[in-house]
């Protein structure tokens, strides 16, 4: 670029894809997007929404830290993680949309709370603010990324080539997220009395939402060979968490079970009270201007 006229590039004709583009057409170019024979498409869409909503809603929560992190370096790191997850969400919602005939924005902005399929761990308020603090945020990130990394490493073998490609791409990102969270867990567990106390409290805050991560849903049963049964991930994830908590000198909380509502939870579209406010904020502008283009 020229430094003499900051504006000269503005009117050039290269308006396509100079920004982030769609973010997935490039990332997944060359991937066969046809649906594999014999796959239940409705179930595939539901499954993509589950994994996509997990990423979208957790990304929304993480981005609340922007300009509020303890250090500039950490502000940048949390934004990176939020961006990775947003990218995963967009690819997954787009895949769901190929079945449902809706685009990523229609799915993100025009579904109501009962239609969102994310786990509760993604939506609860862990701070900044009264809902938690940096330790609770790290505790959630540790659990979420350890679980999702295990899930994506299995999902690489999915019979759906798009899901397999999304998993392949996401794997490196999630390994970084888990590593980042593990390092902070150790630092905070080991650092000062206050940080140890807060990190332990952070674990207690998120642990009731752990069981839900490993509960097999009917959709996952339907999609044998396409979806991953989360129950099969439990011992691997437990082992990872155990190792990190040991290194940090922290105690594994015993309270793992938040009761379901009439047997239902996030995967069934039954959420916590925090979810309505999160969606109200996220969706209001898009819904306020029907027909607008962004």
């Amino acid at each position, binding site marked *: *670029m020229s*430094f003499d*006229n*900051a*504006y000269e*590039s*503005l*009117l050039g004709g290269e*308006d396509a894809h*100079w*920004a*982030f583009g*769609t*973010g997935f057409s490039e990332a997944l170019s060359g991937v066969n997007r046809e649906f594999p024979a014999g796959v239940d498409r409705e179930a595939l869409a539901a499954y993509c929404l589950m994994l996509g909503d997990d990423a*979208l809603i957790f990304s*929304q929560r993480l*981005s*609340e830290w*922007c*300009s*509020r*992190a*303890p*250090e*500039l*370096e*950490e*502000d*940048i790191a949390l*934004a*990176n993680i*939020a*961006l990775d997850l*947003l*990218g995963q*969400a*967009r690819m997954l*919602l787009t895949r769901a949309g190929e079945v449902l005939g809706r685009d*990523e*924005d229609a799915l993100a*902005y025009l579904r109501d709370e009962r239609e969102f399929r994310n786990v509760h761990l993604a939506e609860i308020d862990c701070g*900044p603010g009264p809902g938690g*603090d*940096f330790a609770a945020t790290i505790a959630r990130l540790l659990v979420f990324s350890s679980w999702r990394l295990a899930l994506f490493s299995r999902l690489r073998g999915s019979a759906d080539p798009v899901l397999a490609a999304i998993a392949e791409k996401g794997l490196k990102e999630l390994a970084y997220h888990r590593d980042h969270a593990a390092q902070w867990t*150790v*630092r*905070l567990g*080991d*650092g*000062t009395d*206050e*940080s140890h106390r*807060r990190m332990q409290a952070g674990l207690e805050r998120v642990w009731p939402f752990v069981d839900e991560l490993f509960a097999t849903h009917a959709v996952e049963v339907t999609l044998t060979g396409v979806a991953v049964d989360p129950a099969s991930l439990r011992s691997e994830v437990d082992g990872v968490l155990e190792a990190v908590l040991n290194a940090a000198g922290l105690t594994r909380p015993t309270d793992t079970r938040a009761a379901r509502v009439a047997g239902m939870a996030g995967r069934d579209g039954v959420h916590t009270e925090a979810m309505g406010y999160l969606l109200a904020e*996220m969706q209001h*502008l898009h819904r306020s*201007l029907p*027909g*607008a*283009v*962004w």
Partner: protein
Amino acid sequence: MADDLERRFERTVQSEARIEPRDWMPDGYRKTLIRQIAQHAHSEIIGMQPEGNWISRAPSLRRKAILLAKVQDEAGHGLYLYSATETLGADREDLTLKLIEGRQKYSSIFNYPTLTFADVGVIGWLVDGAAICNQVPLCRTSYGPYARAMIRICKEESFHQRQGYELLMTMMRGTQQQRDMVQDSVNRWWWPSLMMFGPPDAESTNTEQSMAWRIKRDTNDELRQKFVNMSMPQAEALGVTFPDPELRWNDERGEYDFGQPDWDEFWQVVKGGGVCNEQRIAHRRKAHEDGAWVREAAVAHAAKHARKEGAA
């Protein structure tokens, strides 16, 4: 001896060569630079807030990603610049305290509120645009680490500006409500953007010495004129107008004539009376104070680790 050093410094600066951290430099040069770079760093960090205000509500996932990445870039700009001050012997923690205690300033533009999503585009176009006009000359400034930081920052600012302009172009192709939103936003940001170049030359202090040191390279009024000249064709292409009845092409001068911003409002905002001054500082202070235990823990852990390594 001191005269020799001083002469060599003068020669280096006048020949447009770079002063590097280990070179001798006059005290006044060092102090002026620290103040200028720190204020610039503070502006990047405080500048995260007005646009950060819209991340959670961005109306499409693509715009959400672009906005989050942009605000993240600003944190990176703050980091490069604080690092440049550290090569002059300053300390990030100390400068942050000066910011949150109101002892150092940041760009006053960020004391204006972002009220609609169009503001995200207009800030990219006009505010990042004005920042680029101010900063491009600094890529040739005499202090090496500052000049190099500015080259990188200017490239990224230019990308922000294109993103902002593209958002506005898209909105102008949308509904009438969106077009009205863009025009309203331009009406609110035009004058504050012109104020970003600082008070008129006749009232500006420090300029002469900074020009001699090659820390500053153009006067406020020169840069302001340049910005107006560049912005007009952009506004026409976009289909918006600027709220200045005196704005018109002057054939004789070969430049645009334009009116003066309300300098009373400018000074009022600079002195703390803007809509968001208190909010911006309180936000920054809260993040810094809430994060204190985390930074302490990181230091304590590193120290324990170092002791263990030493013992082993």
